[in-house]
């Protein structure tokens, strides 16, 4: 029964309520009719009852008026308004529109805020770390000096006394040269002992940096007078903590590692060199003879380039006396001196530079995707407002007038979004110090200052112009007649017919492409990080506790130290849950190897070879504690004592390079006591990567600490404990054992080996996580954007789909039509995205380990993920399409 018709007839033409009301009453009539029939009434009886109802309704049709569809109560500004008043009018109108369409506003503002926020944070990091001048006067003339030998494959890490002294004598290209080395010392006093970072600096270094003292003077020392060298300059924090900021601190005594230093000055709070954590500076005299290594910087003469300085340094270094065989041990090559002179800022930040640029580009891509998404939303809205524009044009508003109006609206939206983005960025930047790895350079220099804010606002402005331009161009072209004639019903096939629809699809494909690029980057970095963490380092870092135990020279002779260590290790071994315990002169991932060079007769052919190797003193149990695999022979045992024959263990690189086919049993010049010249190789252990996995493994020679007749001479030995359970559970026992041995010493750097590993990988992890977060965000906006575009297409094609269904198309066919369109867009986006990823791959390769930038797994996974997201985004619009009721559409 056609209830709509019957209801309509009941009212009569004269007083017909609006269609919606008729529809609602017809629905009620239908339900009442069905109910009456269900109760057993005959068809006629049921119809009679309903007609009674209709009569009651139509008695007073006036009360059947619904609130008319509220037309925009926002009154557009006058067409003729121009100048400032016009602009203010536009602004007011835009604000009203923003309030009225608050969900739309919220989506746009949030999208822009995230895009701008991410870009601003990255810009502030790049600016603060890479661009902002370092805080020292004429910092652009400061250069870092590093030295190696031609033919060496080891990374350059230091400068040598030989080249330093040769160059410091009347240099031509530099004003001054300064050296330093930094480490921890035990600061003792009335308030207890603590380990603090102290830098030994040459007397030239502080003036070279333009350091100004708050109190006193920088030390000026006589290299010949050893007593003169016991001076110290303390930092502001130490001054306040230990001396209450009193001015009579000068001349007082500070005890470092048991020795007395006279306080010569107090540094200003802003000075932090070599690091912000440096608490004190003591004199360092570069002595001739032998080969010593330290850090060095120089100040270039005005107008001199680093290359010119480098040429002079090379010439001076090569003319200096040859320190002999030790060069081989240190550099692994006896080639001529090779100095590298790089601007200080570059040397501080060089390591993070490629990653920061990569992340900045990623943030830019994210912003581009966000902007494209907003542009697409604004275009859709402009389509919905065609009638408004057409009517206003008809009332006399020129095309330019409407364009200005739209630009004002969009710029306002963009700036509000940018404002929120800036707030978000400020909040994130405040949290950065706890987020960034501790060794990240120049963390203190990262801040939101006016430059960063200007960047952010400029970016929002540019983005709004971009996403406002498309709708504005569209509005400028509005044709009066067709827009007014068109009744919101698109012609059949309208999905891609119009330029606007095509523009939206193109923007959509762009968003998918950006998401693909970011996802590939995140996937590749993520896989690289997994490869780094699971790489075979030659030992098993799980369930190992490590700590460093400072036993300073002032209170411990090497012999006394060796005895104390033996007692500590013996104690530890008896703790329940400890499966192995050892002491050594070093730990994997902790820099500070002892290097040695010597000649030996090769067991292979009896010829003399020059050996250069790092040397480590370890107690029996070291290999067990680290689960360092023994490949041949044996490790050290408790019976390898000073009384027994001297024995050593070498790593595979050592064995392969110097010992030939049968390394075990070979004799190597490495004496433990007087009268002994050689020790016997009793075992070969696996190579251990002591630093980054990517560094080449160097030859390594292990000596047994029990056999050292002169005692243990490293004043900060390392303890290694393997446990059956959670390694940190042993910490309290370890502390009590140590304080039982000597209450005045404190353990430092107590960490599980896994934790050390994680810390050493903090940067790659951060990069992977950041890129991952960007990728997830890009994926979300692409998904949501696609959903919006498809929903719009479905509603535009309602008529077409209705016609198709009426003509016999099954719901599946209709769904396919929608999916097809989505798939064309996405596939295009994915292909472009993957192509871009492949094209830029080589810029990323230096950040990767164990995976190529063209990793097929990552590419496939990314494609699958994107297609899945597209399918999810399609489900709702496709179902809606399939449910379109042809009868309603065609009525």
């Amino acid at each position, binding site marked *: 029964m056609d209830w709509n018709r019957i209801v309509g007839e009941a009212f009569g033409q004269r007083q017909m309520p609006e269609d*919606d009301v008729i529809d609602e009453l017809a629905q009620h009539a239908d339900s009442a009719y069905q109910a009456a029939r269900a109760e057993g009434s005959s068809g006629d009886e049921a119809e009679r009852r309903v007609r009674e109802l209709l009569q009651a309704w139509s008695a007073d049709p006036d009360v059947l008026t619904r609130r008319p569809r509220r037309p925009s109560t926002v009154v557009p500004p006058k067409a003729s308004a121009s100048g400032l008043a016009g602009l203010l009018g536009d602004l007011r109108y835009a604000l009203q529109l923003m309030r009225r369409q608050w969900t739309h506003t919220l989506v746009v503002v949030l999208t822009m805020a995230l895009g701008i926020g991410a870009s601003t944070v990255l810009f502030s990091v790049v600016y603060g770390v890479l661009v902002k001048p370092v805080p020292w006067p004429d910092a652009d003339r400061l250069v870092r000096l590093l030295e190696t030998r031609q033919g060496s494959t080891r990374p350059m890490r230091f400068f040598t006394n030989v080249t330093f002294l040769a160059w410091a004598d009347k240099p031509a290209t530099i004003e001054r040269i300064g050296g330093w080395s930094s480490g921890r010392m035990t600061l003792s006093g009335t308030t207890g002992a603590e380990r603090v970072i102290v830098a030994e600096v040459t007397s030239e270094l502080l003036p070279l940096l333009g350091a100004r003292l708050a109190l006193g003077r920088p030390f000026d020392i006589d290299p010949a007078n050893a007593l003169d060298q016991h001076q110290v300059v303390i930092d502001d924090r130490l001054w306040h903590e230990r001396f209450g900021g009193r001015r009579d601190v000068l001349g007082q005594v500070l005890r470092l590692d048991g020795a007395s230093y006279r306080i010569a000055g107090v540094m200003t709070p802003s000075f932090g060199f070599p690091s912000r954590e440096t608490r004190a500076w003591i004199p360092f005299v570069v002595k001739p003879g032998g080969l010593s290594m330290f850090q060095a910087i120089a100040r270039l003469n005005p107008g001199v380039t680093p290359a010119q300085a480098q040429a002079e340094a090379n010439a001076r270094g090569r003319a200096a006396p040859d320190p002999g065989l030790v060069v081989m041990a240190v550099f692994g090559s006896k080639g001529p001196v090779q100095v590298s002179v790089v601007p200080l800022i570059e040397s501080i930040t060089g390591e993070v530079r490629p990653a920061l640029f990569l992340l900045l580009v990623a943030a830019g891509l994210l912003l581009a995707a966000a902007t494209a998404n907003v542009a697409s939303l604004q275009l859709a809205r402009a389509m919905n407002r065609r009638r408004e524009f057409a009517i206003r044009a008809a009332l006399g508003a020129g095309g330019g007038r409407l364009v200005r109006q739209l630009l004002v609206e969009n710029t306002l939206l963009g700036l509000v979004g940018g404002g929120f983005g800036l707030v978000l960025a400020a909040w994130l930047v405040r949290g950065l110090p706890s987020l960034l790895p501790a060794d990240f350079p120049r963390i203190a220099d990262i801040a939101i200052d006016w430059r960063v804010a200007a960047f952010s606002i400029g970016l929002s402005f540019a983005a709004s112009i971009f996403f406002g331009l498309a709708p504005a161009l569209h509005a400028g072209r509005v044709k009066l007649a067709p827009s007014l004639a068109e009744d919101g019903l698109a012609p059949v096939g309208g999905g891609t017919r119009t330029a606007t629809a095509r523009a939206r699809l193109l923007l959509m494909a762009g968003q998918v492409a950006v998401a693909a690029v970011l996802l590939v980057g995140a996937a590749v970095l993520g896989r690289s990080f997994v490869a780094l963490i699971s790489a075979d380092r030659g030992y098993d870092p799980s369930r190992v506790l490590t700590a460093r135990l400072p036993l300073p020279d002032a209170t411990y002779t090497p012999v006394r130290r060796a005895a104390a260590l033996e007692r500590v290790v013996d104690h530890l071994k008896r703790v329940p849950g400890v499966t192995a315990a050892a002491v050594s002169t070093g730990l994997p991932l902790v820099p500070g190897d002892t290097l040695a060079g010597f000649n030996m007769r090769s067991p292979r052919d009896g010829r003399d070879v020059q050996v250069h190797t790092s040397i480590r003193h370890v107690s029996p149990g070291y290999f067990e504690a680290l689960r360092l695999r023994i490949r041949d022979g044996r490790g050290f045992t408790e019976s390898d004592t000073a009384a027994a024959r001297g024995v050593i263990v070498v790593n595979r690189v050592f064995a392969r390079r110097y010992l030939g086919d049968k390394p075990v049993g070979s004799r190597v010049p490495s004496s433990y006591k007087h009268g002994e010249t050689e020790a016997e190789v009793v075992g070969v252990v696996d190579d251990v990567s002591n630093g980054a996995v990517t560094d080449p493994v160097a030859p390594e020679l292990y000596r047994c600490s029990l056999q050292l007749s002169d005692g243990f001479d490293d004043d900060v030995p390392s303890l290694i404990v393997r446990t059956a359970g959670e390694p940190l559970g042993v910490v309290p026992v370890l502390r009590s054992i140590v304080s039982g041995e000597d209450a005045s010493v404190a353990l430092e750097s107590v960490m599980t080996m896994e934790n050390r590993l994680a810390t050493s990988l903090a940067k790659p992890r951060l990069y992977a996580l950041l890129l991952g977060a960007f990728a997830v965000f890009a994926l979300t906006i692409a998904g949501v954007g696609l959903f919006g575009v498809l929903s719009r297409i479905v509603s535009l094609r309602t008529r077409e789909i209705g016609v198709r269904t009426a003509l016999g198309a099954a719901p599946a066919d209709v769904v396919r039509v929608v999916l097809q369109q989505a798939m064309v867009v996405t596939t295009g986006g994915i292909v472009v995205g993957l192509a871009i990823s492949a094209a830029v791959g080589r810029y990323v390769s230096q950040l990767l380990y164990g995976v190529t930038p063209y990793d097929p797994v990552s590419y496939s996974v990314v494609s699958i993920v994107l297609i899945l997201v597209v399918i999810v985004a399609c489900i709702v619009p496709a179902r809606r399409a399939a449910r379109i009721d042809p009868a309603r559409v065609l009525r």
Partner: protein
Amino acid sequence: MTTHLLKRELKRGSTELLVLALLEEQPRHGYDIARLIDERSQGSITYQVASLYPTLYRLENRDLIEGRWVEKAGQRRRRYYRLLPAGRKVLASQRSVWEGFFAGLDRVAHLTQG
């Protein structure tokens, strides 16, 4: 005659209360509302359906409720109404007015004693 008049007045005044109370439970369409009033009052409030839609539209105009078309596959589209926050407030105040009214009636006319 007087009883009949009182009943009609009561009915008209209570329409809003009934509609708001039913929408408080969940969104409903017009026929559903009419049916529930009939069912729950066990026929004692046979409701003048003619006044239902004017009431709904009036409440909607006052932003107390909101109507929305919902389509389900294979069914007529239906207009569902839901209670808006302002409607919830009006419902609460009407309830207390009616409670007061009944308490007064009871004190005077001893309704509950039967």
